[in-house]
């Protein structure tokens, strides 16, 4: 096993090499915080600011109220266009996202006749946006009908009382930030590890390491543990920022979270090492990291719900460490942590980690000999 002195030497060398460059210190400790801030504030999963246009004929009070309600809701914003514009042209040119077309003679009269088809034209380039537009409009119309017609419709005899748990106000940042945390930590550690190892290969200093009186496992541990440490410094930094700046709740135990993060960081460092054993130069290790990161991010469940994927893709996502870590972060931070859930996902994560460590150890060994 590695001796303390050897390890201390390695640790000093690696940390010095990484932290020597001021730009690297900024990239490691400041850049993640900046990125977290940008993504945390910018992204919103509720659809807002949809450009709504409608041509309201005089005396059409119901349509006018629907329009006013829509603008007041904050979901829609008005479009300045001529009253006689062609709705299709407005959608085609992107000036409007949604257009209400009243039946001939106006909506109010049609409601009086009890036959009031109201057409909603929606730009559905973005599928999610289009669906939300329809749902918003339905809700607005129901509200206006109750307000305007005063004809109290009999209430539905069955009512669902909905309670949203864990994130009752559906704050997007609560949902996004655990995702961004897992991506940032994963990217940082993988890139750092595999670039550092391939760099030594490219520069030829790797040969020097081999000729030094060190065993293969000394070299492997010495080249990976410093990056685990660097990764573990970033974890509380990023977490602290999310809790202080974005007020993401921390319902569960911080200690459990750190432990889980440790397992995750070990796994990502193993992935970085594995990529470096395949790469001949830094260009290849860059593309290799991308080859892993890109699908791993798409499968993580941050951009698309995993449940919707076909069976074969779900299997891929079971192999994705980011997916497990993200699920764990959400469970611990928002739900307070469920023991069986944490055990299950940590065990899978640890298993993936162990297999990767084993393979990269074997491959590293052959590179060394």
């Amino acid at each position, binding site marked *: 096993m590695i001796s303390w002195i050897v390890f201390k030497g390695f640790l000093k060398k690696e940390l010095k090499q990484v932290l020597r460059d001021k730009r690297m210190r900024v990239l490691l400790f400041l850049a993640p915080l900046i990125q977290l801030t940008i993504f945390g504030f910018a992204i919103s999963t509720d659809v807002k600011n949809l450009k709504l246009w409608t041509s309201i004929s005089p005396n059409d009070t119901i349509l006018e109220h629907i329009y006013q309600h829509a603008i007041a809701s904050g979901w829609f914003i008005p479009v300045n266009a001529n009253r006689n514009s062609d709705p299709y042209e407005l959608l085609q040119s992107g000036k409007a996202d949604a257009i209400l077309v009243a039946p001939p003679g106006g909506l109010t009269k049609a409601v009086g006749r009890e036959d009031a*088809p109201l057409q909603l034209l929606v730009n559905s380039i973005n599928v999610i946006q289009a669906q939300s537009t329809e749902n918003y409009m339905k809700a607005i119309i129901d509200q206006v009908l109750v307000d305007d017609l005063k004809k109290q419709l009999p209430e539905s005899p069955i009512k669902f009382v909905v309670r949203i748990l*864990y994130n009752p106000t559906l704050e997007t940042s609560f949902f996004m930030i655990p995702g961004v945390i897992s991506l940032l930590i994963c990217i940082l550690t993988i890139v750092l590890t595999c670039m550092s190892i391939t760099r030594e290969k490219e520069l030829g200093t790797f040969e020097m390491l081999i000729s030094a009186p060190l065993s293969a496992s000394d070299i492997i541990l010495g080249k990976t543990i410093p990056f685990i440490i660097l990764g573990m410094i970033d974890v509380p930094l990023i977490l602290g920022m999310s809790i202080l700046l974005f007020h993401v709740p921390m319902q569960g135990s911080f200690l459990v979270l750190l432990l889980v993060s440790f397992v995750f960081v070990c796994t990502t460092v193993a992935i970085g090492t594995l990529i470096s054993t395949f790469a001949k130069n*830094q260009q290849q290790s860059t593309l290799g990291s991308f080859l892993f990161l890109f699908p791993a991010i798409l499968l993580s469940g941050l951009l698309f719900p995993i449940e919707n994927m*076909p069976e074969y893709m779900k299997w891929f996502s079971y192999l994705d460490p980011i997916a497990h870590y993200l699920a764990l972060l959400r469970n611990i931070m928002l739900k307070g942590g469920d023991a069986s859930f944490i055990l299950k996902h940590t065990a899978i994560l640890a298993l993936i980690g162990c297999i990767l460590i084993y393979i990269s150890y074997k491959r590293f060994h052959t590179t060394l000999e």
Partner: protein
Amino acid sequence: MSLSWSRTLAITQKEIYHILRDPFTMALSLGLPVIMIFLFGFAIEFNVKYIPLAVQDADQTQASRKLAEYFGSSNYFIVNYVSNPEQAQNALQSSQARASLLIPGGFQKDLSPHNITEAQILLDGSDNSTVGPILSYLSSMQAISAKRLANYDPPKAIDLKTRFLFNPELNSRWFVIPGLAVVIMAILSVLLTTLTIAREWENGSMELMLSTPVRPIEIIMGKLIPYAVLGLAAVTFVYIISRTVFHIPFLGNLFVFSIGCILFLITYLAQGLLISVLVRNQQIAMQIGIMSGLLPAQLLSGFIFPVESMPTFFQYFTMLLPARWFMTIARASYLKGSTLLEMWIPFFALTLFCIIFILLAIHNFKTDLEP
């Protein structure tokens, strides 16, 4: 700034040798976009289905069983019975269920058109992306069960008829595939060039090159050309797959779209070169390349999260992302059939970025040996 084509082409030739000598890089840049489009084109689906629903039925009557059955037969939910409210809560806590339906005792007894019977729904709010669809399913489930169980069917005063333009069936693939292609090509392009100059500084070949009469502009242009060709080949493959395998309509002008592709590729390749010129260190160049390419292109370009929904400041902020502009061009060309005139703003922005990045890369290309 004059440019000698023969020297530029010499650099291009040298770079082509680099690419050919490294089959891994070439295979990856041509193969990766194609594989990703295949895998995720089939996999990504926004219409949430089969939501695990924990049902606790305290009533145990015909009506309550029917209510649960309506949920189960809708295809939106998969019903799992639990015996008490704590178990329902636990199912949500451990993510075994996304939603839970608690039917109170006396549900059937209270059921009449003149009375309001309540059933409680608990939703897992930790995954925002599924809450929206579930809420809209719930309102239609409420209407269905009220109609079937209590004969409640009020006349609709206004009949909203929605027409979805450009993607009438709300096909997730039409939405995702052009966007995914943009994201992949953006990142790949940055990564392809982000090391090329830093590498030459690190292994010393840059010093050799500087002792020749070759000028910065020629090095930059010479390095852009081969990678742009490589990227264009990858885009062509992706285009063919999107048309033949996924049958996504392409209504725009192919020539205009190709010009957009070339501008977009060169912009990102130039961004990579700019990083490479500025930092001269592969490890740092790579970190910056991934940070400025990977996450912003995926999260801020409008790929999934619409730019219009962002706070005003960030809407302006995303204007700094070339991917945001090309996202608009790609989707509008595929689905809307927009003309160049209709897309002049994104085209103008892309051209501007393209020129700025190339000029910055040339300008910052220091010919002195000390960084």
